[in-house]
């Protein structure tokens, strides 16, 4: 059997000592795409943050079959895993859109030409060409959402984790993002409440449950959510 790209075994996430996710298991094969769903406050964002090494956890986190534990392990992991934050305002901090998109590849020490190529490509993909030289803070919420996705794409991660990526997007941009998600060759995990998106993508849905809320939530959710 092939080694999965990401595996969580008995994964328990701690937030100031409290267990916000309990004994969660997940297998993501390379190239596989999945949706992570669950009600507000069930711990989806916390789960993603723990995978990136920002919250303590119990259990095992394996990337390509290797356990990820130490600070160094996580540094390496973050090079391979791109994370789009739930709130773009927590993610963006560079003065202009161009610099924002260039931040990751420039940190990787790539040549200016390569950095530029990636910036242009990501901008074209998400329709941001016109905004490249705009100050990040002058953008609308939806525009910032697109920038927050683009600035992760320029890192060219193997695995992409997106936390509510379609939140606040108009129809055109919604389609842009949804199409990209469907067409990309990357391994993708999308955290979302967006039922249209779940239907559009038609991917496997992983339900994060384990809290009392989850069971009641499950019954009122239409078809796409029940296919796990």
């Amino acid at each position, binding site marked *: 059997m092939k080694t999965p790209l990401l595996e969580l075994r008995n994964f328990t996430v701690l937030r100031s000592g409290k267990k916000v996710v309990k004994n969660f298991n997940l297998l993501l094969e390379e190239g596989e795409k999945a949706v992570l769903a669950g009600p507000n406050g069930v711990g989806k964002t916390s789960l993603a943050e723990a995978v*990136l090494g*920002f919250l303590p956890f119990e259990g095992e986190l394996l990337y390509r079959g290797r356990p990820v534990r130490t600070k160094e392990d996580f*540094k390496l992991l*973050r*090079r391979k895993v*791109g*994370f789009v*934050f739930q709130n773009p*305002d*927590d*993610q*963006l*901090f*560079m*003065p202009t859109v161009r610099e924002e998109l260039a*931040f*990751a590849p*420039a*940190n*990787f020490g790539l040549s200016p030409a390569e950095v530029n190529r990636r910036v242009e490509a990501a901008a074209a993909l998400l329709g941001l060409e016109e905004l490249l030289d705009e100050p990040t*803070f002058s953008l609308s919420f939806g525009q910032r959402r697109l920038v927050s996705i683009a*600035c*992760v794409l320029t*890192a060219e991660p193997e695995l992409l984790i997106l936390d509510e990526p379609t939140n606040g997007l108009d129809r055109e941009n919604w389609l842009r993002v949804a199409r990209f998600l469907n067409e990309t060759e990357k391994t993708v995990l999308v955290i979302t409440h967006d039922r249209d998106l779940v239907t559009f993508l038609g991917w496997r849905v992983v339900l994060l449950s384990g809290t009392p809320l989850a069971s009641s939530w499950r019954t009122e959710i239409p078809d796409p959510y029940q296919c796990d």
Partner: protein
Amino acid sequence: MAEGRGRLRLLAFLAAALLIYALDSVRALMLALALSSLLFFLLRTPRNYLKGLLYANAFTLLVIAGLLFTDPIAHLRTAAVIFLKANALLLLTFALVLPAGLLELLRTLEGLGLPKRLVLLALLSYRYLTTLRDEYEKLKRAAACRGFEPSPSLRTYRTYGYLLGALTAKSLLKAKEVYKAMTLRGLEG
């Protein structure tokens, strides 16, 4: 009972702090430092506060280094005074004020007759500072997610500059939003 003790501690602290602040003789300050240290250990102050002492001293030493660099002979005494005073005051603060926690401290101050408004203001600033710190942590994570690793380089300093800039811009924007929200809910002024 506990309240009385808190008040006593605070008054003792204020008196001692004023005294130390006024002292100018190296010998007296050495004694003050010794007494503060003694108090620190006698009151079984959590040892991890010593780390704070270390950080604060990094700053003090920077100032002293600056002084000694310009004119070591003339400034030697001043440097010693600064160092002793700073540490005596810090140890005293750690021993008498910090363990009670900020909330406790504010309550005690209120008990001592500090206006409620001022206490509220202090509380709000504290809340605000905590939020600011959380925001900063989030941005630092965002940078780490995209391959940022601090190193002694121009790029690192520039990045920190941008992070702080973003933090400022965001808090200003947020303050505006909060103001709007408050006016919308009928606050006047």
